[in-house]
C-alpha cells in the first residue's frame, strides 16, 4: 500500500462544521495533545466541544477524544465523524468503521495499515509519526509521548488551525521549561510540515476564525462546582475519592490553597474521609455547627449516604452534596455518563423523605447552582443535592464567563442571634415556623439558652423525644410542606418556545445542548417543538403548566427507567401515558441525532 493510492479528495467544503474523533491508548499522553487542539479551536473563536471517552483504567486500554466544531453553536456530541485519528492498533477496525462515508482517517504510516481495513469510501491520510519522532528524539519515552504532538501538528495543517494560537498555547504551557517547550514545538512542526508537504491542506473540512469566543471561557463542570463552593464560602469539605467527582475536591483544594491561605492561616479544612458515610456525617456535623460544608461523590456514594440523608432531612440540618453521576447500576461504568440517580436522590432513605435537587446543564450552571445549593440548604435546613454528571463534570465546555456580584450575601437561613434568643421566653427548635415552614435554629456554643437536642428519633416541636402520633405528625407534616415551599426558590425551568409547537419536550442537565439542537433539526422537518429544561426538584407550578399546555410530550433523559418522567408523574400528577420517553443510556453524552430519531419514530413522522 502506498500513501498516494488511497488519497481521494472531497470537494464540498465544510467550514467550522465537522467532528473529529481521536482514538488513543490510555496513559500514552494523548490527552494533552487533544486538549491543545480543542483549546486552539476555542481561541479561534469557533464554538467547539471536546468529549473525553476514557476507560476505567490507568494505562493501556482504549480511550477516545471527540471534537465537534459547529459555527451555530451546536456542540452536543456528534455521532458521525468526518475525521478519525487512529492511534490505537487494538481498535483500528472499529474506529475506521465509524468514519462517515467521504470522511478521513489519519493514521501512523510508519507501518502499513492491514489491507482489510482499507475502506474505499474514505480518505486515508498517512503520516509516519513514529518514524518522524524516532528520527528526532533519543529517548523511548519522548518518542512515544511526542507522537501525540506530532499528529496534532498534522491536524493543525489539515484543519487550518491558527499557528499563532498554537504557538502561544505551547508557550503558555511550557514557557518556564525551555527543553520541554522546544521538544513540543519540534514535534508539532514535524507533523505540520509533513502534512503540508505530503497531503492536501487544508481539507475541505476546516476551520476559519470566528468571534464566538468573546466573553466565553473553557471550563469543566467539576472546576466550576469547586469555584462555586469557594465563592459560597464553604469552609469544611469532606469526601471519599470516586470517579467522576474526584476533581471537584481536587479543584476545591487547590483553589483554597490559592485563595484561602492568609498569613499561613488556612480558612478551610478538607477531610479525606474513610468512606462516604463518614463524609456525609462530617458535612452534617459541620453544618450543624454553623459552617458551610459539602461533599462530592457519585452514585455508589449516594447509596452509602442514604441513612444520613434521611437523618439530616428529619433533624433539619443543612448539607450540600454534589453528585457527579456516572453509569450505574452498582459500580457500573465509572468513566461513562448517565442521569440515573434521580429517583434515588429525590427520595433517598427509608421512611417518608423528600430532598431538594438541582440539575445544572453545564459548568456555568455548576458554578451558580453550587452557590445556590448552600443558600437553599441553609434556608430550608435540609440536604440539597446537586446532580451533575460525568459529561458536565469532566469535559471542557465553552460557557459564558462566570459572573459574581460583590453585593452577594449568603442566605444563612433562620439562625437566631443571641439577642433574638434572649427575647424568647423559651427556645423550641421546631416551633415558630415561617411562611415557608422553616423554624429557627441556634448554633452550638453561640449563646447560653440556645441549646437543643438533635435527634433522628421521633420528636415534637420542642425537639423532645416523642412517640405520640399527633406530635410526631405535626413535625413530619411541616417537613412535607417545607419541601413543597422550596420549589419557588429553585432555578425556574428554562423554556425555548417555537411558533406552532404542539409537542413539548422536557429535558434535564447535560441533555440541554443536544435537545436544543434536536429542536432545530425537528423544526427543519416541520416538527416544531417547545423545549423545557427542568433545573430543580421539587418542581414549581410552571413545570406542570408546560405539561398541560402540550398535547404530546417527550421526556428526554439518560437512563433506562425514565426516572425524570417518574418524578414528573409523581409530583405534577400528569399521567405516565402522556409522557413519552426518549432514553439514551449507553454511557456516552447525548447527541441531537438520537433525540431526533426517537421523536421522529415515535410521532410517526418518518
Amino acid at each position, binding site marked *: 500500500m502506498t500513501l498516494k493510492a488511497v488519497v481521494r479528495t472531497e470537494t464540498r467544503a465544510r467550514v467550522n462544521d465537522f467532528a473529529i474523533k481521536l482514538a488513543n491508548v490510555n496513559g500514552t499522553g494523548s490527552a494533552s495533545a487533544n486538549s491543545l487542539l480543542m483549546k486552539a479551536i476555542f481561541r479561534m473563536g469557533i464554538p467547539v466541544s471536546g468529549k473525553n471517552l476514557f476507560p476505567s483504567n490507568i494505562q493501556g486500554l482504549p480511550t477516545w477524544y471527540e471534537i465537534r466544531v459547529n459555527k451555530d453553536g451546536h456542540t452536543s456530541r456528534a455521532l458521525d465523524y468526518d475525521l478519525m485519528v487512529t492511534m490505537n492498533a487494538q481498535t483500528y477496525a472499529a474506529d475506521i468503521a465509524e468514519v462517515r462515508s467521504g470522511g478521513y482517517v489519519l493514521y501512523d504510516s510508519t507501518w502499513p495499515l492491514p489491507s482489510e481495513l482499507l475502506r474505499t469510501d474514505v480518505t486515508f491520510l498517512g503520516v509516519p509519526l513514529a518514524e518522524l519522532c524516532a528520527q528526532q528524539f533519543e529517548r523511548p519515552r519522548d518518542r512515544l509521548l511526542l507522537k501525540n504532538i506530532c499528529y496534532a501538528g498534522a491536524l493543525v495543517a489539515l484543519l487550518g488551525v491558527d499557528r499563532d494560537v498554537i504557538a502561544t498555547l505551547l508557550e503558555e504551557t511550557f514557557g518556564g521549561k525551555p527543553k520541554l517547550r522546544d521538544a513540543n514545538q519540534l514535534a508539532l512542526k514535524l507533523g505540520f510540515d509533513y502534512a503540508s508537504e505530503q497531503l492536501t491542506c487544508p481539507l475541505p473540512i476546516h476551520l476559519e476564525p470566528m468571534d464566538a469566543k468573546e466573553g466565553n471561557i473553557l471550563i469543566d463542570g467539576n472546576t466550576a462546582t469547586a469555584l462555586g463552593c469557594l465563592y459560597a464560602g464553604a469552609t469544611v469539605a469532606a469526601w471519599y475519592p470516586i470517579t467522576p467527582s474526584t476533581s471537584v475536591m481536587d479543584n476545591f483544594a487547590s483553589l483554597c490553597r490559592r485563595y484561602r491561605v492568609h498569613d499561613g*492561616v488556612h480558612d478551610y479544612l478538607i477531610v479525606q474521609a*474513610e468512606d462516604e458515610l463518614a463524609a456525609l456525617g462530617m458535612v452534617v*456535623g459541620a453544618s450543624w455547627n454553623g459552617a458551610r*460544608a459539602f461533599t462530592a461523590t457519585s452514585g455508589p456514594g449516594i447509596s452509602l449516604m442514604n441513612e444520613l440523608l434521611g437523618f439530616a432531612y428529619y433533624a433539619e440540618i443543612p448539607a450540600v452534596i454534589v453528585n457527579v453521576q456516572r453509569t450505574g447500576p452498582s459500580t457500573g461504568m465509572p468513566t461513562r455518563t448517565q442521569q440515573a440517580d434521580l429517583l434515588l436522590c429525590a427520595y433517598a432513605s427509608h421512611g417518608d423523605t423528600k430532598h431538594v435537587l438541582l440539575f445544572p446543564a453545564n459548568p456555568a450552571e455548576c458554578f451558580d447552582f453550587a452557590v445556590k445549593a448552600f443558600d437553599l440548604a441553609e434556608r430550608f435546613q435540609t440536604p440539597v443535592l446537586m446532580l451533575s454528571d460525568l459529561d458536565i463534570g469532566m469535559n471542557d465546555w465553552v460557557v459564558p464567563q462566570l459572573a459574581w456580584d460583590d453585593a452577594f450575601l449568603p442566605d444563612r437561613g433562620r439562625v437566631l442571634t443571641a439577642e433574638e434568643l434572649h427575647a424568647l421566653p423559651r427556645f423550641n427548635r421546631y416551633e415558630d415556623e415561617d411562611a415557608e415552614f422553616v423554624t429557627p435554629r441556634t448554633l452550638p*456554643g453561640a449563646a447560653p439558652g440556645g441549646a437543643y437536642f438533635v435527634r433522628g428519633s421521633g420528636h415534637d416541636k420542642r425537639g423532645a423525644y416523642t412517640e405520640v402520633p399527633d406530635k410526631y405528625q405535626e413535625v413530619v407534616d411541616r417537613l412535607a410542606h417545607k419541601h413543597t415551599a422550596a420549589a419557588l426558590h429553585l432555578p425556574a425551568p428554562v423554556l425555548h418556545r417555537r411558533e406552532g409547537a404542539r409537542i413539548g419536550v422536557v429535558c434535564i442537565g447535560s441533555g440541554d445542548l443536544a435537545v436544543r439542537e434536536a429542536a432545530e433539526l425537528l423544526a427543519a422537518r416541520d416538527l416544531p417543538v417547545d423545549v423545557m429544561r427542568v433545573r430543580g426538584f421539587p418542581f414549581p407550578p410552571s413545570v406542570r403548566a408546560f405539561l398541560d399546555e402540550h398535547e404530546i410530550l417527550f421526556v428526554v433523559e439518560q437512563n433506562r427507567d425514565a426516572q425524570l418522567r417518574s418524578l414528573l408523574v409523581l409530583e405534577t400528577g400528569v399521567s405516565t401515558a402522556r409522557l413519552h420517553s426518549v432514553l439514551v443510556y449507553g454511557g456516552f453524552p447525548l447527541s441531537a441525532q438520537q433525540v431526533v430519531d426517537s421523536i421522529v419514530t415515535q410521532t410517526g413522522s418518518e
Partner: protein
Amino acid sequence: MPSIVKPLIPLATLPRNDLGLTPRNYEGAMSTLCAGCGHDSVTAALMQALFELSIPPYKVAKLSGIGCSSKTTAYFAGEAHGFNSVHGRMPTIATGAIAANRELHYVGVSGDGDSLSIGLGHLAHAVRRNIRMLYVIDNNGVYGLTKGQFSASADIGSTSKKGEANAFAPIDPLMLALSIGATFVARGFSGDKERLVPILKAGLSHRGLALVDVISPCVQFNDHEGSTKSYLFVREHEVSATDFVEPRETIVAHVPDQGVLAVPMHDGSQMHFRAVPAGYDPTDRAAAMHYLQDRHAQGEVVTGLVYADEGVPDLHELSGTPEGPLAAVPFDRLCPGADELARLQDSFR
C-alpha cells in the same frame, strides 16, 4: 429517650465551681435507663468532671450514636447542645463539628455496639485524625437497647440471657486504638466514680482524641459465664416474666491503688479490676499494649490512664486553621470576589 425534666429543688448548700455554677447546672433530663444501669453512673461522673473543670455548659457539645449508652447525652448538661446521631456514625459527626468549631468542648458517648461493630471504622479513623474530643465508650459487652445480643467486646464464653455462649474473641478498644496510634487511652469502671472522674477530666483536657473505655454493667442483659447458672437459678426459683426488669442497685466499688479488686456483678459473676500500678509509665505505647495483654491473659481488666501522648498535634493543628471557629470566619475573607474571579478566568481561555 423521653426528656423528663427533673424537679428543681434549690439546695443552698451545693458546691460552686469557678464559674459560680453548681452541679445542678450540669444535670440533664431524667434518665430513662434501667434502674442500676452502669451508664447512669458514667453520666454522673461526666457531670462531675465538667463541673470540676468549670466548663460552661453551653460551650459543651454532646454527641452520640444509638444505644442505651448513646441516650445518656440527654441526661447531663441540659444547657449544652446535644446531637444524638445514627448508629455508629458519631465519630464522623464529631469530626465535622470539630472542624467547624474548635472552640467547644466535645464529649462523645458511645456504646460497645456503636463503636466496635457498626462504627469501628469511624472510631479508628477519628483516632487517626486525633480530633480533639473526649470519647467515652460505655462498655457493657452487650447490645442493651436491642435486648442483649453479644457485642464485639463480649468475652469468649460469656453467655447471653438466653443461655448462648459467645464464641469470638473480644475486641479491646484500648488495644485497637493503641495499635493505630491513639494519643490517649484510659479505662474506668462505672462503679468507681472516684477514679473515673479524674480520668474524664484528663480526657477533657487532652490535646487530641481521648478514648476512655468505661466498663459499665448492663443490669438487664449482661450475664457472664459464671452467672449462667445464677441466671438459670433465678429462673428456677423466682417469679419470672420476660418483660420484667428488676430494679437494681448501682454497683459501687473502688479499685485500690495496688492489686486486684474483684467486683461482684449483678448477675453474680465477678470482674477483676486492676489499676495501673504506681510506677506505671503511660508514655510507652509498646509497653502499654504489652501490659494490657498481659493482664488480660490473667483475666484482669486494667483501669486507669494507660497511655497518653500530648506531643501529637490534633486535626486543626495539622490543618493550619484559624484559632477561632472556622464557622466564624467572615464571609468577605472567604469569598475572593468579582475581580479575582475575572482574573482567574483568564486562565480558562
